[in-house]
């Protein structure tokens, strides 16, 4: 049991490339911290540095108050679970799990006791005398965990331990890992590229990009208050939708419609000196079928029309996808990196697919020209140049930093599509799309 402190940790490889840049993180005793990021972001390197498998170029690493920079892995009292599990193929499950204790010259009866205890926890008792080659993927994964827990180490390090399991088993094992960590109460550092794993498992999640920690916070904080475009786009599935927007006299014009910013928000954005072009982030669940939104709530967002390209029902929810013109401005390095990570090739077209999560009660269908509503309260506004989330500057939460534009219109007014209004509003007009209804200007 120990806290782990990463104090200005930097890793530069001999070829000069910077893998981890000035990493600072205090991991409390018993905390479950996740390092998450796209491949190549330095998360595994960071973990290897904690384990002692990679040298630290500069900075200080303390485990339990002791500087361990120059200690070899065996003197750090940490256990690690590898992505490939790295089970010793020539040893039985029992020998695999007892190997560390044997090296530590623990008496054989103590080893047996501890191995059997761990096997019981992990439901491996009947497999103790088998070789790893004869085990299923899930069993091997549990042996790898067992090898870590028999040692009762100061901390567990896990390097994508679930990525070799199939989807169903992964979800199951994820729960097991979580339960195990609660039960043992041991500090755990867990590396993954899967943001779902990160959000579900961690007490705290550090999102990394290109060797730099973007934000380290609780899963809820990351989701609700992402510090920048990268975190916003990385956390959440389906990912946050990004639209280009233009600020004009306190009105935020987007291809969905126009939003009026609150005075405070307007001041913050102006003070940041961003200029007129911004990127607007809306999560899929911020959208709703306009017909299902109560009149009281409509004023907090705007209503628009969209042609539904794809309709997916998950039973509990419905996802609909529609295309909006990309406009100018939505191309930042961070978004490109996210797109690459997600395997989305640059479409090169002018359209950007927007995902919306609707209530299952919706009657919207595929190919329909539907009326949708989007809640403006949780909207995020990003600076395209720096990627900074401008809507976070006020500390009292993003939800009230934005006021929906149509707050002066009668909530009961039918949201009739008004193409002429769209034209007059001067926003980028999108074919087949409703103008911003009730836009006062």
């Amino acid at each position: 049991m120990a806290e782990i402190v990463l104090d200005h940790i930097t890793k530069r490889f001999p070829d000069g490339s910077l893998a981890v840049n000035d990493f600072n993180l205090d991991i409390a005793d018993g905390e479950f911290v996740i390092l998450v990021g796209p491949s190549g972001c330095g998360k595994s390197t960071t973990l290897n540095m904690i384990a002692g498998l990679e040298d630290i170029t500069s900075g200080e690493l303390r485990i339990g108050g002791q500087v361990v920079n120059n200690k070899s892995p065996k003197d750090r009292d940490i256990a690690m679970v590898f992505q490939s599990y790295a089970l010793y193929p020539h040893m039985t499950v029992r020998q695999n799990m007892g190997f560390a204790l044997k090296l530590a010259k623990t008496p054989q009866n103590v080893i047996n006791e501890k191995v059997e205890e761990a096997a019981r926890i992990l439901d491996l008792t009947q497999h103790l005398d088998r070789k790893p080659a004869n085990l299923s993927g899930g069993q091997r994964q549990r042996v790898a965990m067992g090898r870590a827990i028999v040692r009762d180490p100061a901390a567990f390090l896990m390097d994508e331990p679930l990525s070799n399991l199939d989807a169903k088993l992964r979800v199951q094992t994820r729960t097991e890992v979580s339960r195990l960590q609660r039960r043992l109460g041991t500090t755990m550092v867990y590396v993954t590229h899967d943001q779902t794993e990160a959000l579900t498992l961690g007490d705290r999640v550090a999102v990394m990009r290109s060797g730099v920690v973007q934000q380290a916070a609780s899963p809820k904080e990351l989701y609700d208050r992402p510090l920048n475009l990268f975190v916003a786009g990385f956390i959440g599935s389906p990912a946050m939708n990004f639209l280009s927007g233009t600020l004009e006299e306190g009105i935020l014009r987007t291809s969905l419609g126009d939003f009026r910013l609150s005075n405070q928000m307007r001041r913050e954005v102006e003070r940041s000196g961003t200029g007129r072009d911004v990127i607007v982030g809306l999560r899929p669940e911020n959208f709703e079928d306009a017909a299902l939104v109560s009149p009281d709530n409509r004023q907090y967002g705007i209503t628009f029309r969209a042609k539904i390209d794809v309709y997916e029902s998950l039973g509990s929810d419905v996802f609909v996808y529609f295309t909006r013109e990309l406009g100018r401005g939505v191309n930042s390095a961070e978004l490109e990196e996210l797109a690459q990570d997600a395997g989305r090739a640059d479409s090169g077209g002018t359209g950007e697919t927007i995902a919306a999560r609707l209530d299952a009660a919706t009657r919207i269908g595929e190919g329909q020209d539907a009326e949708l509503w989007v809640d403006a309260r949780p909207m995020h506004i990003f600076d395209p140049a720096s990627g900074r989330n401008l809507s976070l500057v006020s500390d009292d939460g993003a939800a009230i930093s934005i006021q929906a534009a149509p707050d002066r219109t009668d909530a009961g007014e039918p949201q009739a599509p008004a193409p002429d209004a769209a034209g007059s509003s001067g926003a980028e007009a999108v074919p087949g799309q409703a103008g911003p209804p009730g836009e006062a200007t």
Partner: protein
Amino acid sequence: MAAVTTTPRQKAGWGSANVAVIALALIPVLWMVSLSFKTPAAVLDPSFIPASWTWGNYDQILSTSQFIRPLINSIGIGLIATLVAVALASMAAYAVARLRFPGKSVLIGMALLIAIFPQIALVTPLFNIERSLGLFNTWPGLIIPYIAFGLPLGIYTLSAFFREIPWELEKAAKVDGATPFQAFIRVIAPLAAPGMVTTAILVFLACWNDFLFAISFTSTISSRTAPAAMEYFSGSSQFTVPTGPIAAAAVVITIPIIIFVLFFQRRIVAGLTSGAVKG
């Protein structure tokens, strides 16, 4: 294979080609076996099957220390050279496969250079060195050159095996509290055992079959190995060629090779082709 259709003509063609090749390789061996069972008088008899079979040649060589002692030398020198070469080669191969260190490519190049160096060019210098060091006509006098020439072979074969062992196993061992040496002995070496056996076989065969060094660096049967000893067989008189005993001795030293190859055929092929397909 089943998908490939062969006409009977093709089959016959390939069959006869195979038979021809095998016959070409095997007839001298069978001739040697035949000779070893012929009486001294029948040695010049051109018939393939001996007219009268005799164990006389075998009795003769196996009853004299002129052959038994060299046979023991062959086995002893071969085993020692093999063990030392494999132990050293496995450490060197591990370093070559795993570590980045200055001069690594030079080391690999040197090893290759030694392997392809014509041995005959080294006989004279080595002879002089061994004489001045007092190694001439001793077991170490043969063991050391055998190790030197076995090492490149061992390093190449073993590094191919080591490369196929996942590096994460070693990391896991280190995190489990092993020193680098413990990680090598307890995790890496057991996994590389098939490769080590293969390498050992190849190195042993090379030692066993060596004639050049054996004849050059020895002068008495105290250290002479079997292939060299056969050179010194004498006939019943000065004018008789000891064809029969030589043939019998040749058969005796071939038998272990045949057994080896039959048992370890797959391993030998794996060793010779290691790294060729995978990795």
